[in-house]
């Protein structure tokens, strides 16, 4: 057994999440988000522990995680800035904004600043087109972003003035579910059997009517 990487309280939460699903593997994406919240990105050590929790191999965790844009299997900055450049934002200056972002942060799209503060990405539609051009920082929205707004957001992030609005990278949901499932498997099973029986009865009734 390797030394535990994820903190005990994170492991406890991970087990609560696994318990919400009929099959443990369904917890894979939520657990990857949890590991990113712990580390800022998806570390190999975390993937090993996730694999054990959901009963698959670490390679399967990696193979699944790499499918999804939000799961980072390489280290990213404390603030991941994703500028939407899809059609609605493009029509309202998104690529000009992205170009400004590159100059302002001094990095190319797809890379991380030397001090590890910022990663810049261009994103597909983020679904905030009413406030185009829009961007997200660690998945918190900023809309109608002018070049001046962008510089202000960066300054505020650097100075810690947006700490309440923008948590460190990886923190997806700050509201936790209260408690686990309330309906036990036995109740679910018996309700399903009752429904099946009722349906079979009605079907039989219809058939006999049809035959008559």
């Amino acid at each position, binding site marked *: 057994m390797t030394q535990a990487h994820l903190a005990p309280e994170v492991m406890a939460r991970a087990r609560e999440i696994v318990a919400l699903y009929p099959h443990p593997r369904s917890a894979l994406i939520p657990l990857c*988000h949890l590991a990113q919240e712990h580390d800022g990105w998806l570390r190999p050590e975390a993937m090993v522990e996730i694999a054990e929790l959901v009963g698959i191999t670490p390679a399967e965790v990696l193979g699944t995680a790499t499918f999804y844009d939000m799961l980072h299997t390489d280290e990213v900055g404390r603030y991941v800035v994703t500028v939407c450049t899809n059609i609605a934002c493009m*029509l309202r200056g998104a690529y000009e904004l992205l170009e400004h972002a590159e100059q302002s942060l001094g990095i190319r799209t797809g890379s991380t600043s030397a001090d590890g503060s910022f990663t810049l990405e261009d994103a597909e539609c983020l679904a905030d087109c009413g406030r185009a051009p829009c961007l997200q920082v660690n998945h918190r929205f900023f809309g109608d972003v002018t070049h001046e707004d962008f510089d202000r957001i960066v300054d505020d992030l650097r100075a810690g003035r947006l700490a309440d609005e923008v948590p460190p990278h990886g923190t997806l949901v700050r509201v936790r579910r209260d408690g686990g499932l309330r309906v036990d498997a036995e109740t679910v099973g018996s309700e399903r059997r009752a429904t099946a029986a009722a349906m079979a009865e009605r079907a039989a009734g219809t058939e006999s009517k049809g035959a008559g």
Partner: protein
Amino acid sequence: MAVTDAPRIVTSRLAYDDSHTLERYLATGGYEGLRKALTMTPEAVAAEVDAVSLLGRGGAGFPAGRKWSMLRKAPTSYLVVNGDESEPATFKDHLLVERDPHQLVEGVLIACYALQVTTAFIYIRGEFALGLERVTGALNDAYGHGAVGRDIFGSGFSIDVVVHPGAGAYICGEETALLESLEGKRGFPRIKPPYFPAAIGLYGEPTVVNNVETLSNLPWVLVNGAAAFTALGEGRSTGTRLFALAGHVRNPGVYEVEMVKTTFRDLIHAPVLGGGIPGGRELKAFIPGGASAPWFGPDQVDLPLGQDEVGAAGSMLGSGSVVVMDDATCVVRAAWRITRFFWRESCGQCTPCREGSGWLEKILRRIEDGEGRHGDLDLLMDISDNLAPGVSWPPQQTTICVLGPSIPSSIASAIRMFRDEFLVHIKDGACPFGSAPHG
């Protein structure tokens, strides 16, 4: 302008800043639809939903009632809510999950009761961090209120609802890909048949998948009755619908309007809706229903916002997203950007989509960059023909899901409507609108 005085069905609470709270929800009739449903038989609730002919609001427009009735021939195991809204310029579910999460939760509970399902999963796009927080919070409050959990409102019916975050993949909006994703796998669409998860769904068991907006209509339908709903709209397109208006309009945003009675012109130009095109510009083209939809021009602006009407005109209402392009828009750049989207989001299972999307993107990009070649338009159409034979509408299938065959829509529309603009790019070796950055 024909902006009707139809009631707001799914956006009635948005005037309140605290529209997402249980207090506001209860003060505005919240959970009355569920209470009423619980006094009826599940069949009667399903019949009510069937009677309103609620067309699914996700994109395909399949009647929700019919989807349910396929299921009610066999016991259903799961209800899955599709909240993975990622279609370009579609941002209506985003609004609903953030601003009225209890309405969604109540809709889910009504559907579960009608289907006699005891487990529901609400799959929400991962990028909607606030939406995930709001729905999770609403669910916590709903459990506390006795609306979810064991023996809800003393009815003897029990149900659990789990909020599940996505992690960034457009294709997971395709319902079989969404189920794969919910099973903890890569979001690969499943091979059809079976065409509907009703037969083989989550974990191989019968499953119903409904969109966020579709379910958000249910509380109102239960309280006000099917007749009140079908009194709105016309033909098969009943009720109101959310339209996400984006691009070159004064007031981009999400608008709930009566179906069919409202036209694209109303949506784009009415002062209380889009407010017209700014800067003294004219309408050049608009996309009527998401990135997959063939484009329309100024000639079609008087078409009503109805599923069949738009379908008959050769496009689709799709996800309810309308993108307006003014006369200063370079259509090559617009078609390129939409194609680039499909290329980035192709899951990679099927060759025509995986390879074709990239080829199309490269050709469009070189045309825009002034490096287009003689014959590039034929080449674009030839590749498009491999993705969707005949490049007809609706597209013919060559792949597991509809993503690939949807790619040619914008390209074929742009070439059909603005062939000369493409040719000028190639002949002059430059974009006539000037070179703009494009990443």
